[in-house]
């Protein structure tokens, strides 16, 4: 993968200089080059110190260019003005060509030998080769060897040279370090694209000895992740890059889509509704018990409330699915939102009638009201996600498959519902990974718009706590967070801080002026603020300095192009939507058969029967659907009453 160093010794491109004012140190040096040079900010260079004879080759230092200067031997700008007689047009006619210099500052990436650590020698400077790049970035430790764990992230490109840059899987996906954060301005930073590309790279290069890996991606914006299984347009340059990186340019082979229904309970709430594609979108539907498990999420959108949490726990431990006595003479078995509402009503009425107090079983009525409001809120605002009494339909917990992307489309879901989906999905992942029965050893969770879910300021919320928890402990479990946001400074510090690997696309200048970026030189900041599309700056534990890479366009259909090629279908009327869903499961089904069956049935019953068919996947879907609906029983009027004939009394008492 890494090209060997070019044979023969290439000509040096510059020389290290050191003065009292600009000395070379163990971590930084300066060098000059010819005015015409191929290098620039971000270039990796190699310094070879003078040989030390018998003691082997001399010291070699690798560095990355962080700043550049140009100046001439003019004493002051005034001299130039005078020479040109104040006319810029005549400056070129100036009789003597001034001596001009290109001076560069480089940060040391690596010294060889590492000990003793000394100032950079005043040696010749060369453009780094593939092998040099590998050395400079310490990739030799994990890209070669018995169990290589390199994950290509892009091509280092400078001075006409392209060298693949690898991340270390142990530091990207755990256990040494984990998580990835990418930031940069929308539409230019290629954040979503970079994650898509990197997932493909991981799926192809995740080392065999580390087992199986899958990704769970939350689609939070429009059609962003809706076409990951469809090929996108690539140009020759991209194809060449793929080849150079050792990645097959193809869309994901295994993608599973999940989306909640719309409020009607039959049309899916996603942009992947084109008839050719909607077939593989599974509905995501949760019932009361699934919601109640994570009801803290709903309460804690504003702030953590221990009292409300305690009441929620009480509901799920003592009330849900149990025979429960409300203390006012009523008994309840709560299985649905409607049942729960009945209980709440009984409590409020009971308290009011008895006029006793504001407390019900150690819970204050205000707490109960708050919980009730939030719960009824979710069942109305997220109608298609939360079903009142229907069966739930969930992600395949325990049956996750290797190299598979699970896309959960919550782009059109109410923020409250997004939080819920998010909290429940991630907690479930965690639970199964802890028990080692998820089906894969590692999962990448991709969260776009991280600033919404883990903001730097604002109240402590359940979702933020959860993200913080993954970022701190996920690496031991194989639960890896890939997150993207426009402005890193707006995200909770510890969440971004725990990301072992950080990528930056084109950055906003104001953002770069915030304190988080002060370690970057002004020149690097300028480069970041003008970074071309498709280039990223990478920070990774093995790299002692940020490195710039170029990555190819992801080989999948962009969301925007996807909705053009596969325009979403208009919402179907209820009956048609049912027909469509059944026909998908069994091609023999004809619309009229279904319509006859569901005529005058209640939509809830139809939805429940449909869900049963989907779950069971019977050979004869229509017959099963009919069975689940049940046969209709037509009324027959009782025959007119006839008086009972006066019978002779039976002669004896039988007992």
């Amino acid at each position, binding site marked *: 993968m890494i090209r060997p160093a070019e044979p023969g010794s290439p000509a040096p491109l510059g020389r290290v200089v050191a003065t009292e004012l600009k000395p070379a140190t163990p971590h930084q040096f300066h060098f000059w080059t010819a005015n015409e040079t191929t290098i620039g900010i971000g270039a990796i260079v190699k310094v070879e110190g003078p040989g030390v004879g018998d003691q082997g080759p001399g010291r070699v230092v690798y560095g990355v260019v962080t700043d550049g200067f140009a100046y001439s031997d003019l004493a002051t700008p005034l001299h130039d003005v005078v020479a040109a007689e104040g006319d810029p047009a005549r400056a070129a006619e100036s009789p003597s060509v001034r001596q001009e210099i290109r001076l560069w500052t480089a940060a040391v990436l690596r010294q060889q030998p590492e000990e003793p650590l000394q100032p950079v020698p005043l040696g010749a400077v060369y453009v780094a080769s593939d092998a040099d790049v590998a050395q400079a970035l310490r990739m030799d430790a994990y890209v070669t060897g018995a169990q290589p764990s390199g994950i290509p992230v892009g091509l280092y490109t400078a001075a006409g040279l392209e060298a693949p840059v690898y991340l270390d899987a142990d530091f990207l996906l755990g256990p040494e370090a984990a998580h990835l954060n990418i930031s940069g301005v929308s539409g230019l930073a290629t954040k979503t694209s970079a994650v898509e590309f990197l997932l493909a790279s991981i799926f192809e290069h995740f080392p065999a000895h580390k087992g199986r890996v899958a990704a769970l991606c939350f689609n939070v914006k429009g059609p962003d992740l809706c076409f990951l299984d469809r090929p996108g347009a690539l140009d020759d340059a991209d194809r060449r890059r793929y080849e150079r990186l050792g990645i097959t340019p193809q869309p994901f082979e295994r993608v599973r889509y999940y989306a909640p229904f719309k409020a009607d309970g039959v049309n899916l709430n996603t942009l992947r509704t084109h008839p050719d594609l909607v077939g593989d979108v599974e509905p995501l539907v949760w019932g009361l018990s699934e919601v109640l498990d994570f009801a803290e999420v709903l309460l804690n959108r504003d702030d953590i409330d221990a009292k409300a949490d305690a009441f929620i726990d009480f509901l799920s431990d003592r009330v849900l699915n149990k025979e429960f006595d409300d203390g006012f003479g009523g008994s309840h078995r709560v299985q649905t939102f409607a049942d729960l509402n009945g209980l709440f009503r009984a409590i409020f009425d009971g308290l009011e009638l008895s006029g006793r107090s504001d407390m019900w079983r150690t819970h204050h009525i205000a707490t109960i009201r708050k919980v009730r409001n939030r719960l009824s809120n979710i069942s109305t605002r997220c109608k298609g996600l939360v079903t009142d009494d229907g069966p739930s339909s969930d992600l395949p917990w325990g049956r996750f498959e290797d190299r598979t992307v699970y896309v959960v489309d919550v782009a059109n879901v109410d923020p409250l519902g997004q939080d819920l989906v998010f909290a429940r999905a991630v907690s479930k992942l965690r639970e199964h990974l802890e028990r080692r029965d998820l089906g894969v050893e590692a999962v990448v969770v991709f969260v776009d718009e991280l600033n919404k879910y883990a903001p730097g300021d604002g109240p402590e919320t359940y979702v933020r706590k959860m993200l913080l928890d993954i970022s701190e402990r996920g690496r031991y479990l194989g639960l890896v967070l890939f997150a993207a946001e426009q402005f890193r400074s707006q995200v909770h510090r510890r969440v971004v801080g725990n990301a072992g690997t950080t990528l930056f696309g084109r950055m906003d200048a104001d953002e770069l002026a915030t304190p988080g970026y002060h370690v970057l030189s002004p020149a690097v900041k300028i480069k970041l603020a003008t970074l071309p599309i498709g280039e990223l700056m990478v920070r990774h534990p093995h790299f002692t300095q940020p490195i710039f890479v170029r990555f190819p366009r992801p080989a999948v259909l962009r969301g925007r192009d996807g909705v053009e090629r596969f325009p979403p279908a208009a919402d179907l009327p209820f009956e048609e939507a049912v027909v469509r869903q059944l026909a998908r499961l069994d091609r023999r089904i004809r619309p009229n058969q279904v319509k006859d069956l569901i005529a005058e*049935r*209640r939509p809830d019953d139809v939805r429940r029967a449909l869900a049963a068919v989907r779950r069971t996947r019977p050979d004869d879907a229509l017959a099963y659907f009919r069975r689940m609906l049940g046969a209709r*029983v037509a*009324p027959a009027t009782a025959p007119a009453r006839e008086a*009972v004939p006066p019978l002779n009394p039976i002669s004896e008492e039988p*007992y």
Partner: protein
Amino acid sequence: MKLAHLADLHLGFRQYDRQTPRGGNQREADVAEAFRRAVDDLLVQRPDLIVVSGDVFHSVRPTNPAILFLFQQLHRLRAGLADAPIVVIAGNHDTPRSVETGTILKLYEALGVHVVVDQARRIAFPQLDCAVLAVPHQALMQAERPALRPERGAAHNILVLHGVLEDIIDPEWSVSDYGSARLTRPDLAAAQWDYVALGGYHVLHDVAANAWYAGSLEYVNPRAWVQVREEASREVPGKGYLLVEVPGARTSFRPVAAARKHLDLPPIHGAGLTARQLDEQIAQRVAGSKPAIDDQVVRLIVYDVAAGTARDLDHPAIRQYKARALNFHLDVRRPEPQRVVGGGAPGRRHPLPDTLREFLGRRPLDADLDRDEFVRLGVAYLDRVGGEAAERAAGSG
């Protein structure tokens, strides 16, 4: 409209060997008596509609007295409440297992009773502006069940059915019947009905504000004690039927006094006690019973009694108690065995004797066989075989 909801009459149920003066089984007569008292009360309450939610008879081939008795009582109702329709469905006990068997229930159609045995029927009563969907056991056992939903056309909709709701099944299958159809709450959709009249669970139980099991009128299950316990723990007012105001489903319970009581005397812990001491405690328990044990159905559990001690108990005294009570069950239990006989894997939830007990407890029997005795014998045989096997194993080991 006032609706009367009865269930699980189990006419013809027999138990114990005490006879009536006329030579019939006393418990069978008790069960009939309970229904007679219910009919007495119905004639006073004058409901507009009467539904019986299954298991009218204890078996498909009920005893002749039971057949005659039901005829008499239904005739009383029809004559006394000429305008009140009566809807009766078959439950798992009185549903024939094959078509050739036929059903005696059809006999009562002669009285103008609406008898629903195999297919579900929706019977409209225009004078009440009411439709009753009557769903017998058989209809729920078919691959394609009827949709348990109201249809347009009547102002009031009543569902009558026989089956057990999955979430209130008791694990011992003693309050509900093993062979009953299973139901879920979405199956019922109680919210869509004015009232759901359920049968198949022998203790009064609400499933929703407007969906109830009326419970049986007597203890008509071999394991009555579990019901006694459940009635006590849920503070159920006893046996009876329900009167329901429709619409609104306001229910009121009409208790029906039983001919005799089931008395579960406070148990004795026998560990460390001699036979004499046990005799004394047993005598105390009997003496302290309120009401006295005479003609009642009585149980007394004595825990932790070694086989030798049990042999030395005062058996003449015990025989005397047995003579006084209708049935006196002195349930002497051995100390908990350490080893499970019968080769089940250790830690299994159902040791073989329990499994057998459960199986025999639900196996269809001829109406006049005493199931308790039948089960006891079966388990005793198993015990003996198990003991021999264990001895042999110990000998060869």
